[in-house]
């Protein structure tokens, strides 16, 4: 296998498959999100973080440049395939969130698997799409307390659901032993799983 930081087909395939597992979960999660919406109190924002978890888990597993972006794009477009509903805004949001996660991981030089990196990426992803929401959903015309509630719930969700839960999943996956030959660790392995 090729060495270094460039992505091999196996890396991409694993990333996309991880993302598609999450796409299936996202589709189920969409139900929870919609049920929480009618209250209008932004309770749905509490589960919003789930939408960045694919990027974070895929990065923690592979740890190469581009993985977070591909994962988030694949998860967003995978949702399209699973739900049979093509939604451009979904894919755009996915791309922006993936890109921001990528920047955070670049800051860690694609090395760290710490909880800190995951939580920071979650928070960054939560912040990243607020400007788009601002224009799309006329957030500037919400009552101030309601807007503050929405922002804080989303950031909290990014940190806990995406960062902490993503890291928890990574640790559990590591214990199963499937990560031995995957991503960066693949460099010194000559055996299959």
């Amino acid at each position, binding site marked *: 296998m090729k060495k270094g930081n460039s992505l091999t*087909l*196996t*890396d991409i*395939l694993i990333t*996309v498959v991880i993302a598609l*597992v999450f796409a299936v979960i996202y589709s189920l999660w969409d139900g929870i999100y919609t049920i929480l919406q009618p209250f209008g109190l932004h309770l749905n924002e509490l589960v919003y973080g789930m939408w960045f978890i694919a990027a974070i888990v895929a990065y923690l597993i592979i740890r190469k440049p581009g993985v977070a972006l591909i994962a988030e794009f694949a998860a967003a477009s995978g949702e399209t395939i699973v739900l049979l509903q*093509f939604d451009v805004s979904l894919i755009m949001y996915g791309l922006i969130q993936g890109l921001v996660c990528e920047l955070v991981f670049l800051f860690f030089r694609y090395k760290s698997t710490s909880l800190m990196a995951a939580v920071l990426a979650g928070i960054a992803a939560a912040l990243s799409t607020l400007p788009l929401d601002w224009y799309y959903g006329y957030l500037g015309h919400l009552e101030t307390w309601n807007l503050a509630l929405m922002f804080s719930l989303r950031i909290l969700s990014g940190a806990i659901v995406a960062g902490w839960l993503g890291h928890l*999943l990574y640790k559990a*996956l590591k214990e199963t032993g499937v990560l031995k030959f995957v991503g960066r660790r693949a460099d010194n392995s000559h055996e*299959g799983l």
Partner: protein
Amino acid sequence: MLETIKNYSTFIDKANPLTKILLAAILFATVIFIHNPNVLFHLTILMLIALLCLSGVKIKYLVMLLIFIFISGFISSLYMIFYGEGTETLFRYGIIHITDESFVRGLHITMRGVILSLFGALVIFTTKITDVFYALMIQLKVKPKYAYSFMAAIRMVPIIVSEYFQLRQARKVRSALINKKHISGFKSLKSTIVTLLSQSIRRAYRLGIAMESKGFSDGSRTYFYKTSLSRYDLYLMLIIAAAIITAVQIGTVITPFDSTDAR
């Protein structure tokens, strides 16, 4: 699968997937810059007509989908209707405060979502997923390793889903023997995801190695499926452009909403 729910196919089926995705992106940008609810109202109707006539899907499936699109679009803008700023009160109950302005603004956001969903549905009903990736490789010169790993991964989705059901059944059978924590609640969610992920990673790793050794990863290649740009792409672009222009024009004449600016 699409053939079973379709009555007939139209020229949109022959248009290039990339054109459709590009148009969807343009439509997204357009609805963000339209602040007149009247214009969006007409655009919604035009998109609805486009979906009904051009998708070729049987009407009963379309009706089900439309109900879903309209309801979920309305629900997702309730936050604005309930808590938006405004002066002319329509309804007040506790912290819920519906005003004339926030109501129109809420409907405006609903229509944005609905327009995008309607066009999205039109795209999904007229596009084969594999064609998207071939178009990306042939027209946009995306590296084959990306496109092929996407296509291979999509084929794994049914396996992932069936694995999930298998896991659920296995838990059901063993429910008397294992701790309740592992059947419902957070622990079970975690173990479900971890099981699905680890199995998928293992499978993807094996498939990836096999595909790499067969030369799917790089190098120049020829394609069995052909995608190209044709006059149908032009027709589709003209239709969407005409819809937007018509909506803007009629929006100033026929005005179902009193206000011309949702902001």
